[in-house]
């Protein structure tokens, strides 16, 4: 199987879906001629033309809103927000509109849009090019939020998102774009939205996380393995709505749970994961539910000293894992 990068998996998924279905199109800032500021849409403008790979005016609410209109008509828009941080002007369109179209029309209309955005830090992006924004949306029924960790998952889940008949927010970790490579079949395949994935089987402690932190957890698990500590790693993949069954199963399996997010801690995705566990399998637990996250500051600073302090990394993950294992 070919090994490709995380970002190439994004491009491949979009290209294949555009080839497969003429209703699929891309819109966003600089997605056309330039191929995106990260090059996620590289080559699509040349292949599909400016009518299907649209460089829009600089206005996120319109990017989302025009996409939503097209989706209601029956198209399959893929809207790009240049950075997840810049999705904020589009919140009204996403929460008031996309999320509620099927529901408010009693199933008469639907809104099959995908909104992609690069998120996450560790790239000297400072306060406004580093944020994790999923928690803002992860309380809005009607939305699905996908945050894949591997190129394989990216391709399968992005295709699933494009074919999904409901709105999907698809957040891609920008540091993973070129850092993370993996085997990706050339074939067409989709992966189920809403299902978490066990990325490593283990017996002693359970780590539940998503995105780039999955890799930190797997690296740390490898280290702990040589000390005889066996780590179970569950990758949420879809962070809203959560895969409750998989979470309960993974937590109950070892009775010791570490939850990890790169986002700031209070009110994050892992808070809900914790609540699900505390509600459903409390008596299976042998330790408090531990959380490792960014500090509760508005966003990560630019200076390398402070950025590094903010970011979750393999060392912090390893330390937390060992602490939990010893509990």
């Amino acid at each position, binding site marked *: 199987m070919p090994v490709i990068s995380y970002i190439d998996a994004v491009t491949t998924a979009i290209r294949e879906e555009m080839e497969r279905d003429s209703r699929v199109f891309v819109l966003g800032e600089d997605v056309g001629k330039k191929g995106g500021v990260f090059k996620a849409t590289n080559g699509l403008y040349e292949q599909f033309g400016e009518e299907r790979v649209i460089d829009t005016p600089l206005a996120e609410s*319109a990017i989302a809103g025009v996409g939503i209109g097209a989706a209601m008509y029956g198209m399959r828009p893929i809207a790009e927000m240049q950075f997840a941080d810049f999705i904020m002007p589009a919140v009204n369109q996403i929460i008031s*509109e996309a999320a509620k179209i099927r529901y408010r029309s*009693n199933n008469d209309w639907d809104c099959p849009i995908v909104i992609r955005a690069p998120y996450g830090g560790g790239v000297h992006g400072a306060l406004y090019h580093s944020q994790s924004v999923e928690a803002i949306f992860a309380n809005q029924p009607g939305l699905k939020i996908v945050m894949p960790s591997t190129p394989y998952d990216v391709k399968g889940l992005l295709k699933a998102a494009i074919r999904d008949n409901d709105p999907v927010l698809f957040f891609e970790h920008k540091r993973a774009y070129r850092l993370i490579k993996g085997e990706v079949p050339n074939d067409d395949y989709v992966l189920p939205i809403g299902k978490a994935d066990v990325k490593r089987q283990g017996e002693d402690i359970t780590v539940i996380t998503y995105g780039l932190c999955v890799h930190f957890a797997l690296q740390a698990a490898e280290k702990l393995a040589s000390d005889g500590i066996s780590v179970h790693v569950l990758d949420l993949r879809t962070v809203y709505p959560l895969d409750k069954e998989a979470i309960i199963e993974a937590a109950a399996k070892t009775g010791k749970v570490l939850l990890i997010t790169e986002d700031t801690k209070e009110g994050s995705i892992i808070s809900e994961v914790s609540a699900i566990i505390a509600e459903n399998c409390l008596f299976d637990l042998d330790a408090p539910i531990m959380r490792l996250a960014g500090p509760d500051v508005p966003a990560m600073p630019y200076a390398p000293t402070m950025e590094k302090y903010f970011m979750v990394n393999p060392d912090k993950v390893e330390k937390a894992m060992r602490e939990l294992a010893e509990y």
Partner: protein
Amino acid sequence: MVENRHKELGLSDEKVLEMYKVMLLSRRIDERMWLLNRSGKIPFVVSCQGQEAAQVGAAFALDRENDYILPYYRDVGVVLTFGMTAKELMLSGFAKAEDPNSGGRQMPGHFGQKKNRIVTGSSPVTTQVPHAVGIALAGKMEGKDFVTFTTFGEGSSNQGDFHEGANFAGVHKLPVIFMCENNKYAISVPIEKQLACENVSDRAIGYGMPGVTVDGNDPLAVYRAVKEAADRGRRGEGPTLVETVSYRLTPHSSDDDDMSYRTSDEVAQAKTKDAIITFGAYLKENGILNDDLEKQMNDDIMKTVNEATDYAENAPYAKAESLLEYVYEK
């Protein structure tokens, strides 16, 4: 006899009579809603009164078999023209399960009916503007020749979504008609506190599109403006901004007391220009309407409204648990 102004617009006597009938039906439905509200039978009304001429004039200028419309909450006249029935509107007023707009999930005035290309709407104002642009974009991509029509109030033209949507349509030369129903108030806030420009249509040039302001009490003037805009759109010449100026004859909604911010004199003054009266007079002066016909028309309409009310009042609510449905596709 006054000048016949509809012939030159290509409108037959039957057509203008039909227009009048829809205006009247809109008014009577709205009046009924108020009665139902004041007698405690329905919780909420938001009115079309004073804007029927603009709504019906515009909707008649569109292709009712092909064009897409994204009306705002006052557009009873628009949706009636596009095929929604009095009964359906009453079902919505009573929030009953059969309401085609939302199955009783949304307040009245939140229109949506796919079979008639009435695109589902929400409460936050002006979000429909970019949607209209997206539908037009989709139509263009698919080589269709429909136009997309959307409306909003003058206060709402201050929302960012109006600006962003209009600009997108301008840049991509999309066949969208943006119609601002300027009724001089946004709830209690008069137009001088909403906009500093003389006309809302002054904004059009900033999006590279023509902008026109017409008398919203004159259905023929609105018809002409919207027809021209639709023709432009179909010719591939892009969007148009049409502003119709009239007056909101009722309080903002059944929850509002307009006497806390305007005078009854001002309202009375505006009522002298009510299109239900003035367009009726025009039809009579042109020999298209007479007292008998008018009475007959009114009787028919009242029958329709009564039947619709009775049906809707007796129709069942959606089951409580049904609220769990349609969050996502099944």
